[in-house]
């Protein structure tokens, strides 16, 4: 069977990055084709090329055998390609129906919107594919899962034959994920084809027919799902032995250092995000937090580091209450924080390496004397940390913006670890970081533990959690469903817990 869509030798460059390097991909009719690869491998870029948001420098897209130029999303839409973006492309104050018809509005002369016609069509589509959305609701009022179904409807409304789903499951609850599978299957039954991007190999194995693996912007290969395994896929993705083996001596647990009790907090939208989270961390112990993104991990970290006010509960470090203290006071109590999003929180990108290395400590001795900055101290600090943490380039006056992601992360790690913290909160510490840097950071985290510090490690990468943690807390819908011993558990068990499985099992 000839593929409905082929991408041949696609090359796409960004300043300083070869995001796609002669990538090949072909998609058959009625197929769910998984696209996998580590963060930054080039998946989204490839799809954006296909959808006309980016233009490739080299290579060609063929649709039903014909070569095409897709210059903008309109071209793609006209060809029957629909895309559900990793970051939703919905306009919050508009209704579902308005979002769906945007750009393809049904009109009755003079550009007069025919909303009732649209709503009818949407209701029909929604029924046909079991999507269950209310066309009149405003986007800002509906759940993330519903928003995603709106995105899918948007593509269906445009009569998409090929549907690109970029990491659709990252934000979904397990039930919603199951619902999505059902929808995807309905779609392919109706003859549509789907490109499905995910980081979760289980999902790949569950729904896809074939898998294409990208690594560092190159296509490593395409395999039939039936003929492959998780280990093989992981190896293709990473390019070597899968499980990140970390040299780790058994934990030497000391006294309890961190006590968190009954934390309750809301998210940015005022919805409950944490409900009664409790745990203890001993000195010399790493507590991993596993969970599907969006189950309260972000809010937990923010509460513990002073970036978010909790509504109730308690949090203390070595008996000193830090509950709802400011970020500054928490830092002063020797809590270090590697933030989830380094661009948003960890760095001032237009500051130099030297300046970033004192962020949060800039007002303390020796960096400050009264209100004056002590440039000698700043210089010494930078000259010491840059080689110690292998930050490249070795120029303290380079702007953080000009560094690669891994080196940016090293600035944060250097700064936070140099504080000699008592409690280290590390959130997605290796996201978007290359392998070498990952190992480096992992080693440093273990060093902290071995020095008797308490570590809270939050990560979306289960393998990271598994290999570093001493105990693992699993979060689901704002609660810790269980805390298990890392040595006595399996990925399967954690995976089950992450989907709220425990509750199902025990009840």
């Amino acid at each position, binding site marked *: 069977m000839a593929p409905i869509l082929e991408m041949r030798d696609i090359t796409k460059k960004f300043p300083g990055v070869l995001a796609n390097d002669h990538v090949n991909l072909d998609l058959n009719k009625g197929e769910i084709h998984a696209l996998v690869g580590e963060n930054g491998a080039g998946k989204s870029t490839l799809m954006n090329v296909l959808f006309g948001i980016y233009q490739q420098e080299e290579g060609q897209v063929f649709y039903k055998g014909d070569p095409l130029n897709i210059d903008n999303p309109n071209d793609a839409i006209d060809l029957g390609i629909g895309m559900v973006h990793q970051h939703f492309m919905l306009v919050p104050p508009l209704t579902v129906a308005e979002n769906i018809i*945007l750009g393809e509005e049904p*009109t009755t002369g003079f550009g007069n919107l025919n909303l009732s016609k649209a709503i009818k069509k949407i209701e029909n589509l929604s029924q046909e594919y079991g999507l269950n959305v209310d066309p009149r609701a405003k986007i800002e009022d509906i759940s993330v899962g519903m928003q995603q179904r709106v995105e899918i409807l948007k593509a269906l409304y445009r009569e998409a034959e090929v549907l690109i789903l970029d990491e659709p499951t990252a934000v979904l609850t397990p039930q919603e994920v199951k619902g999505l599978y059902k929808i995807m299957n309905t779609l392919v039954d109706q003859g549509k084809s789907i490109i499905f991007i995910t980081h979760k190999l289980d999902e790949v194995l569950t729904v896809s027919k074939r898998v294409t693996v990208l690594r560092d912007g190159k296509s490593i290969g395409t395999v039939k799902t039936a003929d492959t395994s998780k280990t093989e896929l992981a190896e293709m993705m990473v390019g070597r032995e899968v499980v990140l083996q970390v040299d780790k001596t058994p934990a030497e647990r000391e006294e309890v250092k961190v006590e968190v009790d009954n934390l309750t907090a809301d998210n940015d939208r005022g919805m409950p995000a944490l409900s009664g989270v409790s745990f203890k961390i001993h000195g010399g112990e790493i507590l991993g937090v596993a969970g599907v993104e969006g189950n309260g991990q972000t809010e937990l970290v923010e509460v513990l580091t002073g970036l978010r006010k909790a509504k109730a509960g308690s949090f203390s470090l070595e008996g000193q209450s830090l509950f709802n203290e400011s970020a500054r006071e928490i830092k002063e109590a020797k809590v270090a924080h590697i933030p989830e999003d380094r661009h948003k929180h960890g760095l001032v990108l237009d500051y130099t390496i030297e300046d970033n290395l004192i962020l949060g400590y800039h007002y303390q001795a020796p960096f400050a004397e009264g209100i004056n900055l002590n440039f000698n101290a700043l210089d010494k600090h930078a000259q010491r940390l840059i080689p110690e943490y292998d930050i490249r380039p070795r120029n303290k006056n380079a702007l953080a913006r000009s560094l690669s992601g891994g080196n940016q992360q090293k600035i944060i790690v250097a700064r936070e670890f140099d504080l000699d913290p008592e409690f280290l909160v590390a959130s997605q510490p290796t996201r978007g970081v290359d392998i070498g840097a990952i190992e480096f950071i992992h080693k440093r985290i273990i060093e902290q533990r071995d020095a008797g510090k308490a570590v809270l490690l939050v990560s979306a990468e289960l393998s990271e959690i598994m290999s570093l943690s001493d105990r693992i807390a699993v979060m689901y819908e704002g609660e810790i469903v269980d805390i298990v011993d890392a040595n006595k558990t399996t990925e399967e068990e954690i995976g089950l817990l992450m989907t709220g499985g425990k509750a199902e099992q025990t009840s």
Partner: protein
Amino acid sequence: MEFLTAIFDLGTLRSTLRMATPLMLAAIGGIFSERSGVINIALEGMMLAGAFIAVAISSFTGSAWLGLLGAIVFSGLFALIHAVVSIRYHADQVVSGVALNMLAAGGTVFLLNIFFNTSGTSPSVNALPYWGIFKPTVYLALLIVGVSYYVLYYTSFGLRVRSTGEHPHAADSVGINVNKIRYICVILSGMLAGIAGTHLSLGVLDSFREGMTAGRGFIALAAMIFGKWHPFGALGASLLFGFFQAIQIRLQGVLPIPNAFIQMLPYIFTVIALAGAIGRATPPAASGEPFEKGKR
């Protein structure tokens, strides 16, 4: 009781409507611009430019209607500067607006010197005729409010405008040409401000006077915010501010409040509205941000 009789008569209402006219026109212009994502603090300048061009054209052609038309076209072109600078060249929209206001203030007087050899008031020219009790611009303004409401909420163009100002990348992802929409809206805002200026120079009067907009562009901005970027809201706010001015004229010497304080009212109300005391006024999410494709 004297002040009550001073306020409530038909004359006050007419006066309110006349004074609200330039405000609502410019405010609607502001709504289009900001709804599409471009802050426009140059309404004042665009209005002034329109007022001048209308007089100049009426003077040379003898036709006030051509003056109105010319003001619409010219102010649209004037707004195009703002559009190019802030859309194409990603300039800070506030800075561009400040510059345009300066350009209009300086440019109109410069041209007043060149065309009419004076730096105060232009000669009298043919003005717009009365249509019943008002000048055509008053009816036009009311019509434009209604049409704008319809366009923004009941047409595909309006839907696109609203999406562009809230989430340009979403609009882009469904194939909408974000910058084209923005160009159209900014030019439209200039054209509407041009009508507002013409209302002053050829509607209310028959000549141009240096600085004759006297801050009305900024009150229009206030009306736009107070009206929460909605045409009817802007209409209501414009009428309210027009009413303030109408009663302020009538209450002078009647109430023991100094004039100066009554003149501050629209501005104080706007601050209060923004502070959320009268329901929060939140601007379109993407207004002020240049759109760069592929930027995340």
